[in-house]
């Protein structure tokens, strides 16, 4: 992309420092973005991307000495109302929308903020909202409360909100996280249009393919420090990963044939109308089956059905040759099925509770002694798994939220291994896990497979299943549309099939 406004930055930050609870979250960071540019901000979780965005928009105030230059003027810090009025807009990762309020009010919420107590001009709010949606080429009923809309539509609302008024710089923090491929394509087109009209767009995404496709420059942060600013032209995904983590990775296909092993799971024509249909596969001891496909392909629903939390409408599941019908996930766990949720923060682990309690929660029966929970047995169980999986913890009584994403995921895996499963279903096991820690998770998965566990690995990132599974199933619209062996297909072939 060219730079219509020349090389002078529209927004520049220098000497940004901020400390939280004694930890320096950002250290001498500088950042700049030009008008009409799509600029990518890259870094692992906790590298300081979101903190930087919050400083630019005035949610946080940086330490003294900071310099923020916007449109030729200098400021020591920002305030949310001020930043918004100057055209600095954000699409937050969590959207920060108000579910009970109408779509119109969500989009034009800045109309009711600041400037003292005033009367609300609903007609104006409505027209602002309709105008913003029209610019996106979308039509929604702006009078309905936001809660009546699906997540993808809420994403649209959040984008529309950022376009209200005169947008000069738009920050997009993981805007594609909950979008399907076609919705993502749509969004990327919007981003290009914005940039073409002279708006500076700062794009944050963990999907490196998107980053390479959309941006012209790249700023990389690591551990709260600036690594550097690079042109995107000539970059590769692995080079970005290296810059983000400071380490090099070489991936190789782990697939092997397990045809001589005993069959653990046989799924035959499993169907849940509207979610998935006619799903059949077999899985052997020591085998890792990768299931990939776009969001909404029915992968998670399939996993939840195997796990006994949803009931199939038809079809059968056999475990070790015997047909099984689960009344609840407890029955599935007892039969030897474990399911690592894709949503570790709110479903996989109980963030407020301790590491030890999270680890034993699914296998309480194993630590009973005389009908009561035995602290000694609990300690033994926790010590064993913490050691086995190499989890780095302070004390077992500490809240699990004190651990890094990678260590939390190890505890979550340990929690299921403690139930001594026959089949382990891993649903997006690297979401929220730093690139550097992902390899460690997959090393564990490989060891588990070697020890005879049957594993289903679900991921929407094709490389993840390509390098770690023995076989890959491609799901689309609830059906299995392709089956691949990583040893005979190239990564590129499978990506082309899945991402279309």
């Amino acid at each position: 992309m060219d730079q219509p406004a020349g090389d002078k930055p529209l927004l520049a930050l220098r000497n940004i420092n901020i400390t939280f609870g004694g930890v320096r979250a950002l250290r001498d960071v500088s950042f700049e973005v030009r008008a009409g540019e799509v600029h990518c901000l890259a870094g692992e979780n906790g590298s300081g991307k979101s903190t930087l965005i919050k400083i630019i928009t005035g949610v946080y105030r940086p330490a003294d000495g900071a310099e923020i230059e916007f449109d030729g003027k200098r400021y020591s810090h920002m305030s949310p109302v001020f930043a918004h009025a100057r055209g600095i807009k954000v699409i937050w990762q969590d959207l920060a929308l108000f579910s009970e309020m109408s779509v119109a009010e969500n989009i034009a919420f800045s109309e009711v903020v600041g400037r003292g107590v005033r009367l609300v001009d609903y007609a104006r709010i409505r027209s602002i909202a309709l105008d913003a949606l029209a610019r996106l080429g979308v039509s929604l009923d702006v009078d309905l409360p936001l809660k009546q809309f699906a997540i993808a539509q809420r994403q649209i609302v959040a984008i529309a909100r950022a376009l209200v008024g005169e947008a000069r710089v738009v920050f997009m923090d993981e805007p594609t996280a909950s979008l399907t491929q076609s919705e993502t394509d749509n969004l990327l087109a919007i981003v290009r249009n914005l940039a073409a009209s002279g708006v500076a767009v700062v794009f944050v995404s963990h999907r490196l393919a998107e980053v390479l496709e959309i941006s012209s420059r790249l700023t990389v942060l690591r551990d709260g420090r600036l690594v550097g600013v690079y042109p995107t032209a000539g970059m590769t995904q692995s080079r970005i990963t290296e810059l983000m983590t400071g380490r090099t990775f070489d991936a190789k296909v782990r697939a092997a044939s397990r045809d001589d092993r005993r069959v653990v799971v046989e799924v035959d024509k499993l169907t849940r109308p509207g979610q998935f249909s006619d799903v059949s596969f077999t899985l052997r001891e020591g085998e890792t089956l990768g299931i990939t496909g776009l969001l909404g392909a029915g992968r998670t629903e399939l996993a939840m059905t195997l796990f006994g939390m949803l009931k199939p409408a038809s079809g059968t599941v056999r475990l070790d040759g015997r047909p099984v019908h689960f009344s609840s996930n407890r029955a599935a766990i007892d039969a030897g099925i474990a399911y690592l949720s894709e949503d570790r923060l709110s479903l996989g682990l109980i963030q407020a509770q301790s590491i030890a309690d999270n680890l034993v929660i699914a296998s309480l029966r194993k630590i009973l002694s005389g009908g009561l929970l035995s602290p000694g047995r609990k300690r033994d169980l926790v010590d064993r798994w913490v050691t086995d999986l190499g989890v780095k913890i302070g004390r077992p009584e500490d809240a699990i939220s004190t651990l890094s994403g990678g260590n939390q995921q190890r505890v979550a895996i340990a929690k299921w291994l403690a139930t001594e499963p026959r089949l382990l279903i891993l649903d997006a096991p690297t979401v929220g896990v730093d690139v550097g820690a992902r390899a460690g998770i997959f090393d564990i998965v490989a060891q588990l497979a070697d020890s005879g566990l049957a594993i289903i690995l679900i991921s929407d990132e094709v490389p993840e299943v390509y390098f770690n599974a023995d076989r890959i199933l491609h799901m689309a619209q609830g059906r299995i549309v392709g089956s691949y062996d990583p040893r005979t297909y190239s990564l590129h072939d499978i990506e082309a099939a899945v991402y279309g």
Partner: protein
Amino acid sequence: MAKFFRTHATETALLVVIAMISLILSFATDRYFTIGNAFDLLNTSSVNIIFAVGLLVVLIAGGIDISFAVAASVVQYGVALFIGWIGGGNWAIGLVVAGCIGVALGSINAGLIQMLGIPSIVVTISTFNIFFGFLMFFTKGVSIYDLPDWLTTRVVLYERQMADGSWVEISLPVLVMVLCVAATWALITRTTVGRQLYAFGDNPEGARRFGINIAFMRFLAFGWLGLMAGIAGLVQAHYAQEVVPNALYGRELDVLAAVVLGGARLGGGKGTVLGCVLGVMLTQITQNGLNLMGVSPFAFKMIVGAIILVAITLSSSQIERLLPFRRHQGTTR
């Protein structure tokens, strides 16, 4: 209109239930479906409706308040002492003093919540005990019967004799109630800070990123409830023609039940003035109807409690998927 029913499901349901109960009562009793009875209902519901719209604002902002009813008792004593001290006074002075004391008591709650960063239920259960304990201690539980004439004289704003000889009348409490309802409606739907209250209750972090002043939100919500509680206290003293220290003790939970029945959500971001008024009216109409049908007064509360329990059970199970249960919403379904 159809859109109103879709976006105001609770209010619609309440209207239907009230209409059904009214229909049954109008067949079952002669007295129910008369203008006189309707006005009686308004007169007796006034105090609770004023409390309810005040509490609604706190619930919308994501808080809860247990202390407002005993705060109103404190206000009654404060006003009685003040007008005794200045010797006389009138409605204007009374309302201003009541409002000021109420706002001050509400601000204590807001200040503690804001400073200590602890949930409003902990703070207001503490202040509930503090207000009530000190009130009973200093008054020694003694009631005040000798109130000035302006406070005890019934002010009838509109009266008319009906064909059957009975009188219908609208008295001052109804006017005050209508003003409080209108003011609260204007605050939460027509002003920018009102919309900020909804946003703050709905998604506090999102509101913070917009630069909404959280301390101001808390003082506004609890201050408004304090104001309403102060006014309701004075009106109740006028209605009862006496000031009894424990007269309003226990009212907080009845009002809370009615407000939530009217669609406000514990946890914030949701609730309308209309629903709130209908919630109070439903409980009042039920009691009134039972009374007219000659049911023992001892059975009123039992039936009202059962109705609320059934209403909650039905409404919660129907729209379960729309309601996030506390903090955790099942994301996969």
